């Protein structure tokens, strides 16, 4: 547990150092507008990272999230432009359902088809994107076709906090809470920690695994709605390549790719860190092209550091036992 605490502490410290350094060179980095922009930019990524973290904790991966975002964004945008009178909540529900259905197919193929998650979700990455393209053709939904209440959602506040940020906070906070304090959460950790032992312990592996993929899909679907509301213009390519950022956020956030450890809120912090880095680069007037290289270096650094810590702990535990 201490290890986990230090891991997330590491991200918080890195984040604090980055913000401090950037603010010293340009105080406007801490202005209300700048903070607001950073949080808004984090929100969509954080929502997807929460679902991805749960899947990765079970020793699986969901590469299809970018495509699920795309199909959900296009579906919801089309629906809202055809029926401008529908309330926001319907848009959100439709996005969740579309995503959940996509996630369910992933989960069924992984569990019952016994196809590795990497293969399944690589395949559905193509399939879901292909479906969106054949549906959309070359068309796109523009902001002027969407009802104002839908577009305003991205900018509206509740008690000064933008809805988008609020949703991200609820998703990340709620998922973390369940993963930490409920049986199903602990079972998901157990499944990732040792799949064989999980079967022997009588954990409902199938149900939990489907649940994890459905959650990841549903949250990607929700992210699609948020994407459409925030950017207004949606075509079939929405969210292309997002899976990379999402996995990056999760890995940087300290979730082990081999499952069993890490936290959802760590993944949320990872998403925040990645977003702040890119806006800091702009503020510091560093060539924006450095951003992706930094993200890559950060991923490598994060898994390298995790490995080093794990090796050191294993060594100290062995020594301790050797003295007994």
């Amino acid at each position, binding site marked *: 547990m201490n290890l986990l605490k230090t891991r997330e502490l590491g991200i918080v410290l890195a984040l604090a150092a980055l913000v401090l350094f950037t603010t010293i060179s340009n105080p406007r980095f801490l202005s209300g507008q700048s903070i607001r922009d950073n949080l808004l930019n984090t929100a969509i990524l954080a929502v997807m990272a929460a679902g991805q973290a749960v899947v990765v904790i079970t020793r699986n991966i969901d590469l299809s999230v970018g495509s699920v975002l795309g199909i959900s964004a296009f579906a919801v945008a089309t629906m809202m432009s055809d029926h401008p009178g529908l309330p926001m909540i319907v848009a959100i529900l439709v996005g969740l359902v579309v995503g959940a259905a996509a996630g369910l197919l992933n989960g069924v*193929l992984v569990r019952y088809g016994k196809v590795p998650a990497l293969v399944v979700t*690589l395949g559905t990455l193509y399939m879901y994107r292909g479906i969106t393209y054949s549906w959309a053709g070359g068309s796109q939904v523009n902001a002027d076709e969407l009802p104002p209440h839908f577009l305003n959602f991205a900018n509206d506040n509740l008690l000064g906090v933008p809805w988008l940020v609020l949703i991200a906070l609820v998703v990340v906070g709620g998922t973390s809470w369940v993963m930490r304090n409920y049986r199903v959460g602990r079972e998901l950790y157990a499944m990732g920690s040792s799949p064989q032992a999980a079967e022997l312990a009588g954990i409902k592996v199938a149900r939990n695994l489907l649940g994890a993929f459905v959650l990841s899909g549903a949250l990607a679907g929700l992210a699609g709605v948020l994407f459409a509301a925030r950017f207004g213009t949606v075509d079939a390519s929405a969210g292309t390549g997002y899976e990379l950022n999402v996995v990056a956020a999760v890995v940087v956030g300290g979730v082990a790719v081999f499952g069993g450890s890490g936290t959802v809120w760590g993944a949320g912090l990872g998403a925040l860190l990645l977003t702040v880095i890119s806006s800091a680069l702009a503020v510091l007037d560093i060539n924006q092209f450095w951003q992706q290289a930094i993200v890559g270096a950060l991923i490598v650094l994060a898994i390298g550091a995790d*490995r080093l810590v794990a090796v050191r702990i294993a060594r100290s535990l062995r020594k301790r036992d050797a003295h007994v």
Partner: protein
Amino acid sequence: MSRKLASWDTAIILLTVLVLIIASLAVDNFGTSRNFTFMVLDLLPIILVALPMTFIIVTGEIDLSVASTLGLTSSLMGWFWNHGLSIETIIPLCIVIGAVAGAFNGFLITGLGLPSLAVTIGTLALYRGLALVVLGDSAVADFPFNYTGWVTGTLSWLPWLDGAVPNVLILIVVLALIFGVILHATPIGRSLYAIGANAQAAHFAGIRVARTKFWLYVVSGAVAGLVGVLWTLRYSSARADNGAGLELAVVAAVLLGGVSIFGGKGSLPGVLAGVVLLTALQNALRLEDVSGQALNIVTGALLVLSVLLPNVISSIRGNWQRRKLRQSAAS
């Protein structure tokens, strides 16, 4: 190699032949020599990168950074050219840089023991990022024609084939033969399967698992570097985003060709068929004016089915055997 998977190799090869025949008959212009040349050029990057990728996946690892290595070498090629290096220096230099990028992957994976999936997702971002740093969003285009022309050109010393055989086909055939012989008829090939199926048992049999994997990543990087050069010359354009997303197409083709993502199983002929199948389908549908993006549905479905079908078949077979056993016990 189990019979089950050997039969998947055969199935995919047959399917590929079938698709080629149907497309030649049903799709206008598919069978023309001009279209053949285009197809081979489209095939080129995927097939070359798929060769070392097959080796890596057979050992149970993965390399998702290949397309970014390609982009990095393409960027550097433009940068070197702008800085006055000769093309004869640039080409080997780019291949070496690709090998260094692969060696960095290999070091992280075998030296530090990090999972290859996470490492190469990281270097996917890193190498593409460096490519952007080098060239930004600009492009370098003025490469010498004798090189760009060679890549897109056809064999001139085979007049009876009427300029239908692209020069790069020679490269593909030679490299595919080398990789195929290494994988299927040398001690190295044998050890790759053993590593992928059971790394511990391979270690116990005196196979140097880490060292072997390290060199596979070096080779993978070098080939990606070479493909970066070829890509740049083909389009006569060095850009940071060259080859973006190619890694997924390559992995999809390798898995479609019957290589197990868990390692230890698969064959190079199957992979070659997988690449040809995907490229030919894409080509035929484009000629029929079907959106290439919609083809993603077929690619994705084939990828999933390539693993799903053998599983389903073996589980049906298992159930049937068990039922037979029960019946014989009951009687």
